[in-house]
């Protein structure tokens, strides 16, 4: 019965509803070597970069990184910092700004990371299985392709009812999901500007969910539009401009110049195995910026304010 919370709690009830707002420094208690970490957002938008930089700063090791379905350079940065053992992601890159993540490509080609080869259908099927507490879910996408040969976790089987061949996709189970959203209240009610991509599913699949937000708002503001509440975070981190250098819907656009710095550093490494540029990048934007505000200062206020969606 130790599984029963009533036995765990001392019986002394807290007098008030608890805030789940997290201090940046407390991120350490949520993250450790070897974890399986899901990263929210999509492509060049809404990645939880405060948390990602924190991981890079700590040089956590052997992470399994579950990037978003169209994974961004958030994944690339973690690979650059040497934190990643395995990537579960149907794509890693920044579209026109980098057709593929340079660190991802180099590390994959050199066998320095394991790539769990999948398409978005297989990826979402695995997360769905975790959310439903099922050992697997079936998927048709991949039948007749090289996926089962490349990724033996994707196992062809005969469906027990109609005898069709499908792929069995094992549950993809993040220990923690790291997301970035528009706002939340102190109790973890998270609302997006925009669609939230697949962040709801990452939350459903993950054991815990830490959400960075542009704004902390009152509980009353949440109750004003309850239909907009997308998920209930285990912990909330106030992080204005927290998706930088990526965009945050309704707040700011991606910082292309900054992204170019990262991509160029990646290409130097990919082409010449020259880690100079990325070490300089990490030194300046990660190691020398222990707090998020330090990072924002390093980027510079003028740059940040220039990222506006409509005057930019």
């Amino acid at each position, binding site marked *: 019965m130790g*599984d*029963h*919370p*009533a036995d*765990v*709690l001392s019986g002394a*009830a*807290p*007098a*008030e*509803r*608890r805030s789940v707002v997290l201090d940046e420094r407390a991120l350490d208690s949520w993250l450790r070597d070897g974890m399986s970490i899901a990263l929210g957002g999509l492509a060049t938008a809404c990645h939880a970069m405060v948390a990602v930089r924190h991981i890079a700063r700590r040089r956590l090791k052997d992470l399994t990184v579950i990037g978003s379905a169209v994974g961004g350079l958030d994944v690339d940065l973690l690979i650059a910092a040497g934190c990643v053992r395995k990537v579960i992601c149907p794509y890693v890159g920044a579209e026109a700004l980098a057709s593929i993540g340079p660190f991802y490509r180099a590390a994959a080609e050199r066998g320095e990371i394991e790539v769990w080869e999948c398409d978005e259908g297989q990826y979402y099927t695995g997360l769905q299985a*975790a*959310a*439903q*507490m099922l050992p697997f879910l079936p998927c048709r996408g991949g039948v007749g392709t090289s996926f089962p040969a490349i990724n033996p976790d994707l196992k062809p089987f005969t469906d027990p009812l109609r005898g069709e061949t499908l792929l069995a996709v094992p549950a993809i189970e993040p220990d923690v999901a790291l997301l970035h959203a528009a706002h939340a*209240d102190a*109790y973890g*009610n998270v609302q997006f500007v925009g669609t939230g991509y697949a962040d709801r599913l990452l*939350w*459903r*699949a993950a054991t815990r969910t830490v959400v960075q937000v542009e704004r902390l708002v009152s*509980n009353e503001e*949440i*109750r004003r539009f*309850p*239909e907009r*509440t997308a998920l*209930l975070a285990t912990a909330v981190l106030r992080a204005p401009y927290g998706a930088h250098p990526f965009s945050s819907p309704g707040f700011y656009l991606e910082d292309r110049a900054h992204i170019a710095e990262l991509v160029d550093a990646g290409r130097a490494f990919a082409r010449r195995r020259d880690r100079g540029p990325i070490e300089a990048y990490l030194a300046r934007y990660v190691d020398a910026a222990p707090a998020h505000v330090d990072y924002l200062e390093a980027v510079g206020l003028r740059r940040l304010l220039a990222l506006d969606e409509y005057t930019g």
Partner: protein
Amino acid sequence: MTAAASVKEVMATFIARDIADGEEVFVGTNLPVIRAAALLAHLHHGPNMRVMLAHTRTNLYHTPVIEHFQLLADWRGARWAEGYFNDNEIVLYQKSRRDSVFFVGALQIDAFGNSNLIGLGTDPRRLTLRGPGAIATTTNASHVRRFYLYVNEHSPRVFVDSCDFISTVGWAGGGADARRALGLPGGGPRYCITPLAVLDFEERSKRMRLRSVHPGVPVDEVRARTGFELIVPATVPETPSPTDEELSILRRRVDPQGLLRE
């Protein structure tokens, strides 16, 4: 100062004390005792509980009086919402709500807490009594950390040697390992609450055992009105009554209409 607690108030209090802060409760409609238990736990010691009401999630810790709604879909119950949820999500996405406090009603319950909402009879195509159906009990009870059996009638036709059909697994054929053997991740039934008593499950065999009798109920009556061999300890305590504080929350904030005192 306060009048003596009714049996239903005693039942609600027993359940409320077993619900921990931070857990998820559904404020039901059809069963006043369960509704009261959920709200009493929330208002008495559960400021961080997730309160599910009219397909919304909310927190009512500072709501002075919580109006009773008789129907599940009464939209007026959504006025306090912090978030909405879709019915299919709540049933399929079990991982994010393993700490949901779940209750299972039944037409029949056997000695190992297996229960039946399907119906009575031998031929499922021609039931002698068509039951209401399993609603979400089968799936939820397979996954949540624990659940409670709750019945409004304690009689040999409810507590039977063997259910005509099983819609929700308790401890299957018995034994602490029974659920693991079936691959059910949920913790299984913790208590069975009836108008006469609270029953639990003996640790090794997982057979139903008399845990406490409600005030004024003789042990022999419980034994007599249970259709299977009930484990009865040498001494059976009385189900504890609510404190003045609990009773005052019940009567002022949760159940001013007095549904529990009818």
